[in-house]
Each structure stands twice: as structure tokens, then as C-alpha cells.
């Protein structure tokens, strides 16, 4: 599903080169739930940003479903985000002016699928996420846990190949964290969603099938 070889990313900060990734090798199988842990500055978020097509790599190869994202133009990386990748962020990142339903619909609109009826599996997913009765609410009317569930629904509505979750429980209490992590695991098990999750929390990481550790821009274990 995902094949990463000798991935490097160098940022320019003024005249200084910052080595965010120093040669990452990683394979993720289809349907896998992978947890990535590591201290701040270890390169986890940079790896996510590259996988999500938000920034191009400096060197190396990244194959997602057979496509080398190193070769993609800006427009092709935009298409990758539309179709192949779904993001869940620590701060939920919902559009505050839109309802839950519209926050989900805008992802379909951007992907160009809004004219088609939602697929039946998504109704099951909404049931699983407990959002059926909250579709008309605005984000400010929801708890943190509910907002994160909306973010998950939005991330998967276009059935992306991979779901990238960056500290999805970072802003949640224990109860909501368990709920969200359980939902991610259920989505992985029930609809076969490939998930890559960044976390600092070892208990959260334990929800994945496998844990990868990063340090100083490299995968260390």
C-alpha cells in the first residue's frame, strides 16, 4: 500500500538547512493500523505532510498504491489529498460556520462526488461514529470528542486509501480518547481502512497493529 524508501526532507529556515527527515524507510500494508510514536522534532508530522501531499519530499521515493508521489506536480498532490488521503488533526479543524453535515459534504464537494448519493457503508460509519442525530449542529455545539468524530467522518467520506491521524486524541480527555481510538480501530476492522496515527501516548499507540518509533528524522524501531 505504502512504500517509503530513503525519504529525505530538508526545510530552509533563513540560510540554514533543517533536516526533518534523514532517510526514512517504511512499508505499510493495505488495511493496516500503524501507530507512529516519537518525540517532538522527530519528523513524524513531516512524514505525514509528505504522505498527505501537503509538502513535496526533497529526496527518496514514496509509493502510495503504486503512485510515486515524488513525481507529482502541485495539482496532482492536490488530487491526492482529494481522493487518496484523509486527515484527522489534533485540533479537529472543522469549518466553524458549517453544520456537521456540511462539514462532511464539503469534503465530497471538493472531491467532486457531492452529486452522487452517499454510499451505504457511510451510513453505517455515521452510526458507528454516533453522529446521525447531530448532523444539523454547528461545531461549537459539540464536545471535543464529538468534533473529532465529525473530523473522522469527514476524513473517510471519500473512502481514501489511507487515513492520516495526527494526535487525534491530543485534545481529548481519557473517556473521549478511548472512544475515538475505539472508533478508529472499528473503522479499520469493519471497512478495512488503512490508518497511520501519530501519537505521544503509548496507550493510544497500542490500538495499532504495529508501532513504529521515530527519532531525529529516522525510523528507529
Amino acid at each position, binding site marked *: 500500500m505504502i512504500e517509503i524508501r530513503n525519504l529525505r526532507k530538508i526545510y530552509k529556515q533563513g540560510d540554514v538547512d533543517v533536516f526533518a527527515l534523514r532517510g526514512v524507510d517504511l512499508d505499510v500494508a493495505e488495511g493496516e493500523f500503524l501507530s507512529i510514536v516519537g518525540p517532538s522534532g522527530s519528523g513524524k508530522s513531516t512524514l505525514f505532510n509528505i504522505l498527505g501531499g*501537503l*509538502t513535496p519530499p526533497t529526496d527518496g521515493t514514496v509509493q502510495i498504491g503504486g503512485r510515486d508521489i515524488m513525481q507529482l506536480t502541485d495539482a496532482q498532490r492536490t488530487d491526492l*489529498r482529494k481522493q487518496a488521503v484523509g*486527515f484527522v488533526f489534533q485540533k479537529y*479543524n472543522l*469549518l466553524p*460556520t458549517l453544520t456537521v453535515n*456540511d462539514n462532511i*459534504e*464539503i469534503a465530497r464537494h471538493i472531491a467532486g462526488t457531492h452529486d452522487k448519493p452517499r454510499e451505504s457503508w457511510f451510513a453505517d460509519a455515521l452510526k458507528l461514529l454516533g453522529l446521525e442525530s447531530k448532523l444539523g449542529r454547528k461545531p461549537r455545539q459539540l464536545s471535543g470528542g464529538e468534533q473529532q468524530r465529525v473530523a473522522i467522518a469527514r476524513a473517510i467520506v471519500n473512502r481514501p486509501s489511507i487515513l492520516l491521524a495526527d494526535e487525534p486524541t491530543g485534545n481529548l480527555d481519557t473517556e473521549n480518547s478511548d472512544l475515538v481510538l475505539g472508533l478508529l480501530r472499528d473503522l479499520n476492522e469493519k471497512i478495512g481502512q488503512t490508518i497511520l496515527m501519530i501519537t505521544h501516548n503509548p496507550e493510544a499507540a497500542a490500538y495499532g497493529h504495529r508501532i513504529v518509533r521515530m527519532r531525529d528524522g529516522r525510523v528507529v524501531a
Partner: protein
Amino acid sequence: MIPRLVFENLKHRPIRTALSAVAIGLQVTMVLTLVGVSRGMLDESARRQKGTNADIVIRAGGSAILGFGVEFTAKLEPAFRQYPGVADTTGILVQSLGMLDGITGIDYDSFNRMSGGFKFIEGGPFTNPDEILVDDIYARSKGVKAGDYVKNILGADRKIAGVVESGKLSRMFMQRARLQELTGKSEKYTAVYVKVADPSKTEEIAKGMSDKFPNNSIFSMEELASLMSVNNIPMLRTFIRVVIGLGVFIGFLVVFLSMYTAVLERTREIGILKALGASPSYILSILLTETVLLSLIGSVLGVIFTFGTRWIMHVFVPEMVQITTPDWWPIAGGIAVVGSLVGAVYPGLKAAKQDAIEALAYD
């Protein structure tokens, strides 16, 4: 989906939305008021010309449509009167009093004969040569009545003999001979108004007189009235264009600042949309749609405000006639939309080019 997002965005910041729409509305009002006043004044001028009841107007050659600054010899009047088909004539002299004011010297008897006579609201005709007549609009705007004195009219305070109903040529009258004497323009006229015996032959007589008196500009009343349009007054046309340019610039500034603020405010939201796969053109289309909606709301407000300015003009400056110009509503709206779109381009491009990672990290 984009219209819904735009509508919700506008609703989310009601004060910013209201202020931007009002500012755009004021720009639209500015254009509509100027056009309304220009047309209103010209229509009013044409109406007062027609109020003389004349069929033909004779002026000095080369006079501007609204120009009364050029005189010609009064000695021609008998020749005009004797032209075949002409029933009556009356000569007038117009003297500017600065700004929009002017005084018209008339021969009271011949002018009354042709125009059907003044209708006095207060007072009566001249009782001595230094008196003046004013119309009701002048009296209302200056707060004067019959028997009052108007200060400093051609070097003296002049008593108002009577207040007449408006609609007959001018807002202020005095006896022609006295005006000629005071201005040193004896034997001079600004215009001669002609009544023909058979109105169906007006055009034919006007043409014949033009051929016979080539040094004068001769118009049928209908032709003169039709020439009193904005398009035939080059200075007014230019002035309107300048105001339209100013309107576009104001629209540009308002929307530029409003959208620039909106883009800064929504940096994170733009980042979210980009993370969802929104292309630069998608982001740009959201801002441009918002701009068009804002300028349409502003245009509607502008039209409504125009009724307000019309009321203000009517109450406080009655000599400035403003008419409603529905044919200009879409034009003024179009000007607002164009100015606004130009103003939205830079903030829109800034948003479209925003780096998604930086935008998502924005607090």
C-alpha cells in the same frame, strides 16, 4: 456548497458584512445620486423651457445646450416676429448670479401672453423696475416670501414683488429693460422664444428660420428638450465618468480591505480546505463568490439609500431635483461588482497561494 459556505461566512461576521455592504452601498448611492441629480436638473430645465409655451427657441450661434452666457442683438426680434407662420415672440436676457443661480429679464406682457401668465402664490407683478419675482422652489429653499428682500442681487437688495408657481423658464425674474441696463447689455438678448400660428408646422418654420438666420442657433422646443440629456453635455458626461471611476476605486478599497482581513481571519480554514484537497481555484472561487454576493447586497442597499438622498434633496435643497433612475440600477450595481472583484483579486490570490501546512498551524 460554495454559496452555502459563503452565506455562512457572511453570517458569521455580521458587522464586517454589514459595514462592507453599507460602504459598497454608499458607492452605488453616490453614482445613482449624481446621475439622478444630473438627469433631474436637465429634466427640470427642459420642463421650465417648455413652460414658456413657446414652439421655437432662438439663441446666439454656437450656444451650448445649457449655456445662457452668449447674447445676440435684440434688433433681430422684429425680423423673427415677421417670419411667415410666427404668431408671437418674446426676448429674454439671462444673467448668472454665480453657482446655480441666475436671473432672467423678461418683458412682462409678452412673456405672460406667450406662457399663459404667472400663477402668483403670494404677492403680485412688478410694481417698480427694481423688484424681482421668484418661484416657489426658490422661496422655499431660501426661506423668503413676497415683500422680503433678497440681498445683493446685481449690486442691491431687491424686494420680492411676488412668488410664482415654478415651471416657467426661471426661478428668478426681473424686468428685461432694467436687467439690460444693470448689466450694460442694452439691446442684447440671450434668447428669443417664438410661438407659431400652426404648431404642426413648427419643424418646417424652425428649419426655414435656421436658413434665414444662420448666425443663430434655432431649435424647436421638442428638439431642445431632447438635447437636454447627459450625453449632450460633455462636461457633465466627463464628471459622471470621474465619479464612476471614483466609485470603482472606493469599491476596490472597501473590498480589498474587507477581503484581506477575511483571508487573514480565515487562514486556518483555508488550510483545512487545502488539506481536504481544495485547489487554488476552488479557494479563489469562494472569495470571489463572497465578493459578488457582498457587492449585490451593497447594490440593493445603495438603491434604497438613493431614495433617502432624494428625500434629503427634496427637503433641504429643493432647487436640486433628483429623479429615480431605475435604468442605472444595474449599471451602478455592475460598477460595484467590478470594483469589488478587482479589490478581491489580491486577497483571493494570497489565499489561493497560501501554504497549507503554515495555514493549518495558524492560531
